[in-house]
């Protein structure tokens, strides 16, 4: 057995679990659903300046979309790209339904306590995110709209929001490529609009490895002119703060 560190890091986030990490620019983060019906609430911040963060409205209006899939990028409120969605077998990720709250979980699935249920008690997105934000020096004022990986919520013509049951299958995956150093915050908790009456039981595998350089024919760079300008803003930022573009 040698003592070299593997170039791939793999984590399993159990149902109800949470995780946060600083992840360097130029990594691929692949999320794989180990069972059907997954939902992972995700927040992203600029690791060096957490006042800059994923901005749902800027991301959606620049790409003329109300959901996220391959080719889309996740933009900050500074017109830059945090991460690109480079692979996706799911086809639709929700970014308008937010996170589950303690009140919502108790009312929908029944009240659970650690005292009675030990680690089987039902965690909420709200509390998971608050803990991980606080761990990283942030507060509840830093809460903002999350991305719910693996979930589909669409709006009808009147604006009513509809959750699609059975949207993601076991083994499906989505890959983000980091375009700047990010703080990633995850909560593996139910989508607030989930129509099922049972608390989700879907573990998620997170695999992180080095990404290939972004080439001129990159699907996310080419997706829209807006995406290219956001990449250009990001590259300028990297030039100014990191001493160049690798």
């Amino acid at each position: 057995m040698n003592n070299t560190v593997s170039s791939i890091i793999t984590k399993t986030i159990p149902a109800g679990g949470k995780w946060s990490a600083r992840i360097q620019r130029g990594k691929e983060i692949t999320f794989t659903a180990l069972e059907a019906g997954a939902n992972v609430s995700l927040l992203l911040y600029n690791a060096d300046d957490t006042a800059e963060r994923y901005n749902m409205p800027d991301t959606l209006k620049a790409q003329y979309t109300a959901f996220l899939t391959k080719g889309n990028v996740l933009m900050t409120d500074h017109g830059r790209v945090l991460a690109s969605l480079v692979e996706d077998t799911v086809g639709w990720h929700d970014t308008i339904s937010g996170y589950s709250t303690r009140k919502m979980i108790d009312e929908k699935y029944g009240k659970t306590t650690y005292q009675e249920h030990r680690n089987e008690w039902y965690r909420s997105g709200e509390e998971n995110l608050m803990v991980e934000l606080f761990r990283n020096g942030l507060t509840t004022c830093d809460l903002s709209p999350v991305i719910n990986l693996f979930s589909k919520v669409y709006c009808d013509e009147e604006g009513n929001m509809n959750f699609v049951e059975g949207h993601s299958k076991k083994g499906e995956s989505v890959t983000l490529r980091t375009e700047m150093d990010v703080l990633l915050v995850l909560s593996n908790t139910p989508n607030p609009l989930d129509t099922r009456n049972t608390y989700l039981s879907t573990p998620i595998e997170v695999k992180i490895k080095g990404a290939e350089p972004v080439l001129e024919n990159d699907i996310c760079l080419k997706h829209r002119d807006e995406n290219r300008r956001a990449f250009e803003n990001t590259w300028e930022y990297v030039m100014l703060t990191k001493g160049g573009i690798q």
Partner: protein
Amino acid sequence: MAVLNYVESERKVEEAIYNKKLLSGEGWLYTIEPGEVLRIVDVEGNQAADTLFYDADHPSDHYSAINTILRQRNIYLSTGSVLIAESGKELVKIIADTCGRHDTIGGACSAQSNTVRYSHDTLPMHNCRDTFMLQMAKFDKRTTKRDLAPNVNFFMNVPVTPAGGLRFDDGVSAPGYYVEMQAINATTVLISNCPQLNNPCNAYNPTPIQLIIWDK
């Protein structure tokens, strides 16, 4: 609920306790007490009033666009919509609306998002997020950019289609249309009367809004 929900108000302007015209490109920060009513009038039509709300007692608790639409399970705001903070606290309720639909998905314009959406040379142009930041800088030295969150765009039409499309449409508003909200708890209201010159939603012509307050 919350779709083209047209309700007129019986309040008379001459009975108001506050009345101010806010020109485009200008900001406004004001705290309304429980029971007080704020009317925002789209004076010339098709203007966007970008608005944020804070719990006046705990300004770190900001308006939550997503929790608000989640609670009513509908992305548009209109009469009956209760606007809530990130904590779930109720801030204001829309009690009259002659426009019928308001956006809270599209967010505010910024110099940086303008460079992405239009072109790099729009960076120097005036924008809502600068207005928000100037007002907050003057308001409370403890607030920072981290307290800015996705906002309401009163009078703005941002349709989302069942297929997941999103676009900025010509407004459903017209001259004199208004929205009226009553404070449930003491609420600090932050408005940027949008100066956007790159978007056809206001015919490239930002115009004034009128802000009128009644004590009940």
